Every structure is written in C-alpha cells, then in structure tokens.
C-alpha cells in the first residue's frame, strides 16, 4: 500500500517535471534550430574580359566559377565542391577543376573524377552573352541528374 502510494507520488512528480520541462525544451529547441531561408535563383553580370581564364563570383548565395576555355567558349559552374563545400579552383593548364581541401577533382565538364573525394558533379549554369556582358544565372544548363 505504502509502496503503491509512493509510486503514484513519483508518477505525479515525474509528470509535473515533464509538464514544465517539455515546453521549455521545445521552445529552446525551436529557437536554436531556426535556419533562415536562402533566396534561391538570381543572376549576376560581369564583363567577359574579367574571365582570364577564370573568375569566381557570387550569384545570389552561390559561389560560381566562370571559365574561358581554350577555344574562347565561356562556361559557368557552381564552385562549391560537392564533397565538403570548399570552393574549387579552375586549372587552365589541364582544363579541369580542383578542390584544395581534400584534393577533389572534376574534369573539364565539371564531372567528378572517380577515385577522388567528390561523389557528384558540379552543376553547369546558363551563361548569356550580350556583347561584352555576361549574365550568369543559377538555372542549370542541363536538367540535373540527367
């Protein structure tokens, strides 16, 4: 009887503690786990002469590398390494991309080189050329995962 009463009291105590703790934990949890929305999309412009032979820019929140190929073609790729989000560099000598952080490599089309750390390719972005002005938008040139 005594034990039963003690158990009931313990239960009431536990429930009261949970009643007061749970909302506090919930509120604090929601407070610290708020992640602001990132504006996706957007575009940026630059002069073609600035791409010599590559230029890192930011389009919206996204770092983008714009490159000029040997034949003069201008292309743009997301510059965020798909491994751990460092920023990749363009190597004009070998016409490929390299990530210094963990030696990730991508070929000239931004495709990750097998055997290096990245598991996904860089995304090629749309470049519109109007005379000397380049407009880079975050729209992928090809549908992703194609």
């Amino acid at each position, binding site marked *: 009887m005594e034990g039963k009463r003690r158990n009931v009291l313990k239960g009431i105590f536990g429930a009261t503690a949970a009643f007061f703790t749970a909302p506090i934990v919930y509120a604090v949890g929601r407070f*610290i*786990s708020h*992640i*602001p929305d*990132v504006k996706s999309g957007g575009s940026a412009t630059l002069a073609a002469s600035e791409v010599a032979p590559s230029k*890192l*820019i*930011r389009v919206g*929140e996204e*770092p983008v590398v714009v490159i000029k190929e040997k034949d003069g073609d201008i292309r743009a790729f997301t*510059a965020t390494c798909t491994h*751990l*989000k*460092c*920023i*990749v*560099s363009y190597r004009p000598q070998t016409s490929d991309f390299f990530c*210094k*952080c*963990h*030696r990730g490599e991508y070929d000239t089309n931004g495709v990750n080189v097998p055997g290096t*750390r990245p598991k996904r390719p860089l995304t090629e972005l749309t470049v519109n050329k109007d005379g000397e002005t380049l407009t880079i938008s975050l729209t992928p040139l090809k549908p992703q995962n194609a």
Partner: protein
Amino acid sequence: MSQWFTSITHALHLEGVLAALKKKPVTHHRHTIWYYFGGLTLFFLIIQFVTGILLLFYYVPSAEGAHESVKRIMTEIPFGWLIRSMHSWGANIFIAFMIIHMFSTFFLRSYRHPRELMWITGVILMLLALGFGFTGYLLPWDETAFFATQIGAETPAEVPILGEFVALMIKGAKEVGGATLTRMFALHVGVFPLITLLVVLAHITMIMLFGVSTPKSAVVRGEEKYFSSYLPKELAVWLIGFAVFIVIAALYPWELGRAYDMANPTEPPDNVHPEWYFMFLFQTLRIMPEWMAFLGFGLFLVFWAVAPFLDRHAKNKVHTIVGIFILLVIAAMTVMAYSELEPVGETPGVLKVQGDSDVLNAIWFFAVMSLFTAFVILLWRKRNKRLQELENGGAGEQPKI
C-alpha cells in the same frame, strides 16, 4: 590575512573540509611527474578564461566586423597583440597538456574505481576543449578559418540520418556565414565556458575527495601532504610553464590571415588545414569515407568513456594495447597529414604584429622573474619541510636558510 581566512572558513562551515584537505597525501613514485599535467591543464584553462574575457572587450562578433576588430586588437589596442597571441598559443598548449594528462591517466589506469565519474568528467572536458578549439577557430574570420570551419561543419552532413541536421545546427544556416559566426561565438563565450566551469568544478571536487591515484604497479617511495608540500611544487611548475609560454607568445606572435570576403568568394588558401589536434580527423577524411571516419571516432569515444567500467582486472593488458593503438593511429594520421602539406612561401596579406624591443625586454624580464619566483617557492618549501622534520624529531642538518 590568516584571521580573515579563518573567519571566512568558519562562517562557511568549511573547517571540516579544510582539515581533510590538509591531510590529503600525494604519493611519490616513478610516475609522479604525470600528476603535474593535470594542474598545468587547469592553469592554462585559467589563462584562456582571462585572456578570452579581455578579448571580449574589443571583439565584434559579426561577419562584417570580426576580422577588422581582431586587426584592431592587434594593431591599435595596447598589448592587444600579446593578449591575442597568448589566447591562441594558450589554446594549443592547453589542449596539448590536456591530451598528455588524459593519456597518462589512461595508461596509469587512474580511472579505476572509485574514480570512474572523474574520468567521465575528464572525457566531457576533452570534448569541450575540442569544441572550444573548433568554435574559436572561426572567430577571426580569416580565409583559413572560414574554410577549415566549412570543412568541419560540413563533415557531419555525410553521416546518415542525423548528419544533415547536426551540420545545419553547427552552421546556423544553409551555408557557413554570419549566422555561423554568431553561433560559434555564442558557444565559445557562453555555452562552453559555463558547462566547462561546472564540469571542472566537479572534476576538482572529486580529486579532492578521492585524492590522486597511485598506480598499482608503482613502488611507493613515500608521500607528502598536498597543501604544504605538493602545492608549492605545482605552483612552481605553473610559473615555469608561464615563463616559457609568455616568451613563446611574445617572440612568435599569432598571425591573422586575410579577411574572408563573403561578397567575393575566393579559393581556399594553399594547404588549408585545421589546427594540429584536428589533423588526424582531417587526414582520415581524405583517405576514407566520412561515415567510416565518424564510426571510428564514435567507437573511440564510446570506448574512451566506458574504459573504467571495462577495465576490472588488475593485470589487464588489453587496455594498454588499445591505448597504444589509438595513440599510434592518431600520431600516424597527424604525421601523414603534415607530410602531405606542400611547401608554400609567405602568404600575402597575413598580419603579424609584435611589440617593440622595450616591450619584448620587459616580457623577458617578467619571464625571468617568474622563474626566479618558482625557485624561491621551491627553496621555501624545502626549508619548511626540513623544519617540519625537525619538529617531528627527525634527524638531519639544520636548514641553512
């Protein structure tokens, strides 16, 4: 002074505690030297708190103001370069001493009953120390700090189920940026210090309650009282440590890299890498999948935390072998990581500030005075010990001082 002390202890009913502490013995054996590293770790933690609080007077925790404020501390604020250098060097020395203290405790099996909880508080302090290192690294907002944090914050995302959420919690945003900096700042100066204070207090209280552990294999050559005999030696070691530390901090002032500009993304600097105590993890991530690295680290942590409960037999050799294996893996990965760094010349835009020759001379003088004080404390202790021996009727010469 002594009257004040007596009154305060009386008012707080601490006479009993003090009487017990006065009797607290420290044994002498061939491993006694390892005891000093616990005290040194505590001493450098105190230095970190003091220098950290001082830096808070001028540091601006925002992506726009952080780098500029650190630059200002180093160039405009009197002794700012020294205090920042002490904080950065102190962090590294603190972690080095903590690692030595932790491994010596492990190999000497000092975690055994009744000190299991003490060991667990030590493991929590190790994690906090690494947390301090990680969160503090980003605060100057230079390029190396940015990319090292980028790698560190993104790594958990590769772990299935909770990884992505953990990475987001670390960054406070989808990408490392201003939100990450304020989050790191809050953890570095608010959350971690508070938890650390509580855990250190628990750790020290347990040392006072259980005393220092004497390894079972050690041949005890004698013992001494903690407060009257051992503490002066510990203070002397702290002073020697401080003298060496202040000279290093002054002669090799900590640098500040180029500011990271959010608006104009740049490639990571050559050889971007974290601090030396994260290098083994950095290298592991280079050569094996993230999940495997995390699994290994997780297993290590679990084993490390429960080690006292697994080690029940007096002649257990397994723990020693596992401990040596862990040390070798960490050392090998660290050496491999450093050996793979390519030689680079002077990095452009790096700020290095040092006091003028008068200040440096004053620091040398201060260091020598610290050493001299350590010497005086040791002499005083020796004299006291001899007097006590004479009082107790022990034979020996009359002290010369």
